[in-house]
């Protein structure tokens, strides 16, 4: 067993599983740091996965698929910003609505474009490749650069100000709404890339293939105290436990409960430490 867990193939598997979570958590961190509650990660993953598979199928190019997935994630973010920032709708409700919309919408598009109920026709697949999969490289790069960008650049300063002190941002002549929009759009691109990884690894889209990963990513964002680098570490732990579970097939925990482990862990942390220890951005949701 130790041999399996130390092998290169196992490491590659952990990375592959971690990519959608990591992208989603990075996208979620940025969006939330700018003051928008990002419940719509699930929708961005799902539309991203669908667009990547559909365009990948149509063009035969996985790279075109990735681009389409990222754009789809950004489109969802644009709708989110339109409703919750510019039209003043409740951010939580908009997030839930977008998730519902993604669940029905991707199935509708599947029916409309491919006349299929549950699965898209085959798209290019990266399969087990690690070095050949640009999404894995992209995730590693983003995990290093995004935290730096949030903490060390003007853009990052503005997005944090939009989330913590929108009034201060306004006082120096920057519209908080614009800063939030920029942050959310970049966040959408990232989450969309996570969705592309979902469908381009298996080479096709299937209905509800994000299966709650967006919520797990959001959980990691919260658990990390809205620190993107730490959120990615959390995602790696989630991916590691998922990979171990696949290798050991239900040896140590019933298979029905295993996917819920990250949630249980977070709930225990909240029970012991409470929600106040991890400060959310001061103006989150306002």
């Amino acid at each position, binding site marked *: 067993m130790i041999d399996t867990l130390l092998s290169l193939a196992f490491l590659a598997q952990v990375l592959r599983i971690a990519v959608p979570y990591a992208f989603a958590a990075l996208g979620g961190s940025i969006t939330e740091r700018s003051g928008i*509650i990002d*419940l719509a990660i699930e929708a961005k993953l799902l539309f991203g996965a669908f667009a990547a598979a559909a365009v990948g199928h149509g063009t035969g190019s996985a790279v075109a698929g990735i681009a389409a997935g990222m754009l789809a994630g950004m489109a969802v973010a644009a709708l989110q910003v339109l*409703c919750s920032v510019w*039209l*003043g*709708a*409740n951010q*939580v*409700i*908009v997030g*839930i*609505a*977008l*998730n*519902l*919309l*993604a*669940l*029905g*919408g991707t*199935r*509708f598009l*599947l*029916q*409309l474009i491919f006349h299929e109920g549950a699965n898209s026709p085959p798209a290019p697949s990266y399969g087990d490749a690690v070095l050949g999969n640009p999404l894995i490289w992209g995730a590693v790069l983003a995990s290093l650069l995004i935290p730096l960008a949030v903490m060390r650049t003007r853009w990052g300063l503005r997005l944090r100000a939009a989330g913590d002190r929108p009034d201060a941002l306004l006082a120096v002549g920057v519209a908080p709404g614009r800063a939030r929009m920029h942050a959310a759009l970049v966040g959408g691109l990232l989450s969309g890339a996570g969705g592309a990884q979902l469908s381009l690894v298996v080479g096709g889209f299937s209905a509800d293939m994000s299966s*709650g990963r967006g*919520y797990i990513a*959001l*959980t990691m964002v*919260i658990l990390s105290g809205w620190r993107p680098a730490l959120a990615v570490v959390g995602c790696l732990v989630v991916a590691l436990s998922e990979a171990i579970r696949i290798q050991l097939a239900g040896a140590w925990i*019933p298979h*029905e*409960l295993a*996917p*819920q482990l990250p*949630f*249980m862990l*977070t*709930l225990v942390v*909240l*029970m012991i*430490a*409470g*929600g*106040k220890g991890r400060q959310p951005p001061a103006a989150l949701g306002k």
Partner: protein
Amino acid sequence: MNRHWEVLFDFARRPSSGTKREVQAALIALLLSLAFGSALMLVVGKSPATVWWAMLSRTATTPYVLGQVLYKATALVLTGLAVSVALDAGLFNIGGEAQLTAGVLACSVVGAALPASTPAIVALPICVLAAAAGGAAIGAAIGILRVTRQAHEVITSIMLNAIVAGMTLWIGNTVLFQGGTTRGPAIAPGAELSLLGLGGSPANAAVLLALAIVIVVWWLRARTTWGQAWLAVGRDVDAARSVGISVGRIQILVMTASGALAGLAATSFVLGHKHAFEEGLGRGMGFLGIAAALLGRAHPIGVGIASLVLAFLSTGGLAVSDLIPKELTEMLQGIVVLAIATAAPWVERNSEGAPA
């Protein structure tokens, strides 16, 4: 601008009372959703008028479809009220899925544990209470975490939705499911609710329970000090505290009651229709309850009407599945929520100066 449009915008902009604003918001959201739905029908190459008419006429003239609408609405009223009473107190209970599933589990396990000879007068109340208690337990957990550990109820709700689904499946697989099926042991016959007999549809007597609950919630809200306290907490936590309301206690109580309401929806599924635990029973109704509560503007009567509308949209979609793909009406659910989320603040902004 066309005169008709002016009338529409006048109607939307005119300063009005709170109730009128809520009705306006709901109607605008509904019209927006119908417009989106019509656009989607054009996309799939069908005339919206034909499809909507077929949906209406088939629902109205087929007892089976009418019964299906009623069956769905029964559960929706309860999960919708669950979200709505929490909203009243300023809490967002999106744990309806977990609470309903817990209700289904509790109701069916207790029902099956009763001796087969238990008379209805004993068996029914026990099973109904079990359903409520199952949901209440989850609601209470969310409320307690919120009040004592400052954990946001939306976050804990999401986690509990996933955890309860996993737990229930695990319990089903290990102890409940009978010989390779995903169905548990049957409940005592005395606990069964009778069908309404609408064309063989599963519409059952639980609809009366749902109606009674609508009235009870309305009465509590409008006529009791307890209801006033919970509305006060929702309006302004600090003001409520300053007049001596124990805010934390009210929040926990409301979340518990909210969970109980969502749990009660299990009665229609378990006691009225399936008569046993089944995997996935009632799934999706907890989430759709959010749409019912928002569209009903968190008013008990509004939630009742909204539940009927949403049940019609989703069941009517199945009735016209020869004309449009059923995914189209699935998509409409999300659009309804998005439309109401956007319409409500818009109406609010455009009627400034009106009394709140």
